[in-house]
């Protein structure tokens, strides 16, 4: 039996792209939530965490409605930019970014919140701007939180199913990621293929979390 590696490759492509986008979105968002006192925080913070409690199908359903060729946004994107979101890899990326957002934002937010304010003040008192303080003082000191956010977002994207199925469907080579391939193989009573994908996902997920733990322990030793 020849095994199709495509779903696994697609899964890791999706996880990588999602994580990179989330780094640029999640870190500034976590910084803003942690340090702002504005009213908007009370709306944005629960919104970010919504994917933790919502069934993935709900999120997938709304994205489907929003970007469908019959919707305003969907037809606008298609007419002017020739971009299709629904049932494409791009759709998967949008869904994954939204769905994994809390896994990136929440640990990093906690890192920012527990960072001593006095060290930030010490940096300001040395004449350093907010940006320089963030890049040279805060971020290097909350590395464990950053690693946790990045790895959790990556690992969580690997494990996505509901959102991906709703937006992407099951198109081989385009949207058929490993979790969906497993579902398809089981439905076709093809257990050995399902076993193959499941085993690899199991090992990789364990490996990622194991390495994260080891790295963070080591980092803590250096810091304390």
């Amino acid at each position, binding site marked *: 039996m020849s095994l199709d590696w495509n779903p696994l490759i697609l899964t890791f492509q999706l996880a990588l792209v999602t994580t990179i986008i989330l780094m640029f979105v999640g870190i500034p968002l976590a910084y803003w939530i942690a340090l702002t006192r504005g009213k908007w925080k009370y709306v944005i913070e629960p919104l970010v965490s919504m994917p933790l409690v919502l069934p993935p199908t709900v999120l997938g359903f709304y994205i489907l409605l929003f970007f469908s060729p019959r919707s305003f946004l969907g037809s606008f994107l298609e007419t002017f930019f020739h971009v299709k979101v629904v049932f494409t890899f791009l759709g998967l990326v949008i869904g994954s970014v939204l769905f994994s957002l809390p896994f990136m934002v929440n640990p990093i937010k906690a890192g920012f919140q527990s960072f001593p304010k*006095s060290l930030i003040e010490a940096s*300001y*008192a*040395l*004449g350093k*701007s907010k940006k320089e303080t963030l890049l040279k003082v805060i971020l290097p000191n909350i590395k464990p939180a950053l690693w946790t956010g990045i790895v959790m977002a990556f690992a969580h994207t690997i494990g996505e199913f509901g959102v991906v199925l709703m937006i992407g469907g099951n198109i081989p080579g385009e949207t058929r990621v490993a979790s969906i391939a497993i579902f398809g193989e089981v439905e076709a009573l093809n257990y050995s293929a399902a076993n193959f994908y499941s085993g690899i996902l199991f090992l990789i997920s364990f490996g990622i979390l194991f390495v994260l733990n080891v790295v963070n322990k080591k980092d803590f030793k250096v*810091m304390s």
Partner: protein
Amino acid sequence: MIKVRAKKNLLTSHGPMRLAVDFQIPDKELITLFGPSGSGKTTILRMIAGLTDPEEGFIQVEDEVWFDSDKGINRPVQERQISFVFQDYNLFPNMTILENLRYALKDKKEEGLVYELLEMTRLTELKDRKPATLSGGQKQRVALIRALLRKPKIFLLDEPLSSLDLELRLKLQDEILALYERLKIPTVFVTHDLSEIFKISSQIFILEQGKISRSGKPSAIFGEEALSGKFKFVGNILELKREDFLYIVTVQIGNHLTKVVATEDEAKDWHVGDRVLVAAKAFNPIIMRI
């Protein structure tokens, strides 16, 4: 000349308090803010630095206005040329000592100054270590020179020595004094340690309940009471023992036990547990180095 006028309502551990101060620091002077904890000392330093905003007030350093509530002027902390030394050092744990100091430089070409100050404070050998591996005294030395690398117009020290033991404290007092003598920058030193005031400051402001209650030279302020020739200690009687016609009274003063002789007349109304004042006249105490 530095002018500070500031008002602010504060919430302290003893309840709400109104901070209202108005004072001036002459050029090149080292002044001390002295007072119990919660009297507003640190808040005043933070207001000068721009880390806390007064509700109302005016702060001027040399000819620059840093804060003026009437005109809506409030320079951010980054634009006030200050040096702030914190009680708990606040060295950046991710950087080595050298990197901590370099970070403070405005112009990276001035690195020679970093090495010069490291040499002066005998820290050169530690330059590649992380702050976590240094002792308290070493950390505070690094914090001091890091603050000074900013070439400040005013030097603000918030109880910088309070977490160090006595010996180190005395040594660092000398070093701070030496740095101050060399640089002659107006300096505000916050402390609740009396010995520090006598050694360091030319002028002292005593802060009570958010107000400056007295100010002047340390010897003038503490002159009448603390510097008279008498010793006075308050203690508790632990034991009253009769020996022939005299009483031997054991008194606990702080952690020390002292035996004092009293006549029958004096001792007859005393009881164990009474609070008493033990005093000696100027001509009889013996003073020895220990």
